[in-house]
């Protein structure tokens, strides 16, 4: 993990390179065009569209000011979706980070089996979310699912995991933790690898071990890694879509509807692209805030 901010090349080189003129611009042009066209303009457009009525069924855009935002925040179904997203994030982000760090430490303690253990623990991160959601939906299926079979062995009545408003969100979140913990583990493994071996020796000489060593030495040293892992976990959780779409479709009774699935429902179920854009824009603001916060945290520490 690169903790140090790399400095740009010496001044002399820079000045002479500038004279070569047009070629660098041309080399940069395709990427600049792509980023502008498919990233930056859409980001701005999502704000623009949220100020208009934009029917998917066709017809002109009509300016409605902030009505769409009002409608979004007024709609109990949207508020439920926002609430669900917050709950989902709360129950996935922290466990994913704790588990990810724990798994990374475990992997490092695995000795000779280390590469094998690491591979096994990283597999969830690579899995196709649609495919794995199909499998989890089957494992938690009301009739015949693995989980209910296990419950039957200990004499517990089958639970309709994905059919009950009280349990569905937790099952979806379980898939989120299963996968995101694998992702954060990867980040932590990379971060721990940058720790100099001398730290270990010094800690041992001082007699600092176990949890104390983790809290006092390791964690502060991998702080940028932890922040990065946290950002990844937040991004993954706040934008959850695939698992919900495949496992529950947002139901039962809207109990698993999230901001992104709700955006989808408003835009492509109710054909109201303007209101959907308003909701998506609110999400974008949150994501940008997370990104900016991350940079603040890191630059405050790094210099």
């Amino acid at each position, binding site marked *: 993990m690169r903790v140090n901010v790399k400095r740009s090349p010496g001044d002399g080189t820079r000045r002479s390179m500038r004279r070569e003129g047009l070629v660098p611009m041309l080399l940069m042009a395709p990427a600049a065009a792509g980023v502008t066209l498919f990233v930056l303009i859409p980001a701005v457009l999502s704000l623009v569209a949220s100020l208009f009525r934009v029917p998917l069924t066709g017809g002109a855009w009509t300016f409605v000011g902030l009505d769409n935002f009002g409608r979004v925040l007024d709609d109990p179904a949207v508020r439920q979706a926002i609430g669900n997203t917050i709950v989902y994030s709360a129950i996935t982000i922290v466990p994913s980070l704790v588990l990810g760090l724990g798994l990374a430490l475990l992997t490092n303690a695995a000795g000779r089996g280390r590469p094998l253990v690491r591979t096994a623990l990283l597999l969830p991160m690579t899995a*196709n979310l649609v495919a794995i959601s199909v499998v989890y939906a089957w494992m938690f299926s009301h009739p015949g699912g693995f989980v209910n079979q296990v419950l039957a062995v200990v004499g517990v009545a089958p639970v309709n995991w994905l059919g009950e408003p009280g349990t569905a969100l937790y099952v979806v979140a379980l898939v989120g933790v299963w996968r995101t913990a694998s992702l954060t583990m990867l980040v932590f493994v*990379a971060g721990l690898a940058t720790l100099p071996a001398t730290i270990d020796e010094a800690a041992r000489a001082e007699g600092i071990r176990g949890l104390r060593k983790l809290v006092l030495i390791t964690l502060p040293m991998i702080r940028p890694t932890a922040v990065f892992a946290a950002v990844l976990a937040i991004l993954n959780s706040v934008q959850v879509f695939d698992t919900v779409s495949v496992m529950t479709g947002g139901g039962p009774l809207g109990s698993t509807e999230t901001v992104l699935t709700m955006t989808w429902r408003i835009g492509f179920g109710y054909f109201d692209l303007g209101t959907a854009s308003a909701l998506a824009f609110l999400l974008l603001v949150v994501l940008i805030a997370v990104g900016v916060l991350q940079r603040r945290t890191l630059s405050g520490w790094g210099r």
Partner: protein
Amino acid sequence: MRILSRAAVIVAICGAVAVSLFPFYWMVRTSVAPADETFSQGISWVPTRIDLSGYGRAWTSGELGRAMVVGLVQTLGILALQLVTCVPAAYVLAKVRNRATGVALTMVLVGLLVPSQVTLIPLFVGVNVLGIADSISGLILPFCTSTFGIYLIRQQIMSIPDALLDAARADGLGHVRRLTSVVIPIAAPGIAAFSVFSVFAHWNEYLWPLLAVRSAELRTPPLALAAFQQADVGYDYPALTAGAVIVTAPIVVLFLLAQRQFVHGMSGTEITE
């Protein structure tokens, strides 16, 4: 005491590995079990006999065969475009400093904060305006470049000493030759890591194809699997899990082959600038 804690570590590792792998195991197990054993009473860890007919049903009724081809074209098309756009841009942003590259770098850093998921409605409107909705171009073009790719490869290129490039320049090599004969060979590991990442991300991408694809012929693997699940196949879990195996397998194989590049590549990803 020492031995005890060692045993605890081993138990924890075994538990973690089991939880991590179990869904994969259950997927494969169900896919090779005969259909009439799907809803059997009690837990059956291993099917009584192997029945591969689910794979046939997934391949034909689920139309996964065609979807795999679409997925391959889409994933490799995106990768090719991204490499062509990102590598030169990364080089310029790493080694040329002027006002234009400063603006461009800002664009990249801002772009990093804007995931495609939240801009999907303008993107959808955009591909319609361009007339490429419901086409393979509509699947590929929105991802023709990657701010993440530019950033990651730039990090790699920045570690190349300027002296090396100056020497190449003294030999009369222009920007393009310096890029192809000096920069790319040295930055190859980073480029490879990004490539693996890109293939992972776009093979697994679900939201955008769900929006951009209307024709059954253009369904990507996740899309075809989701459609297969939603079509009333009843409770044909062997076929469904067989479909899941088919969609998952290429990525798992790629991961096993390219694991090292991927893990190393991820280590340079945090944004520290």
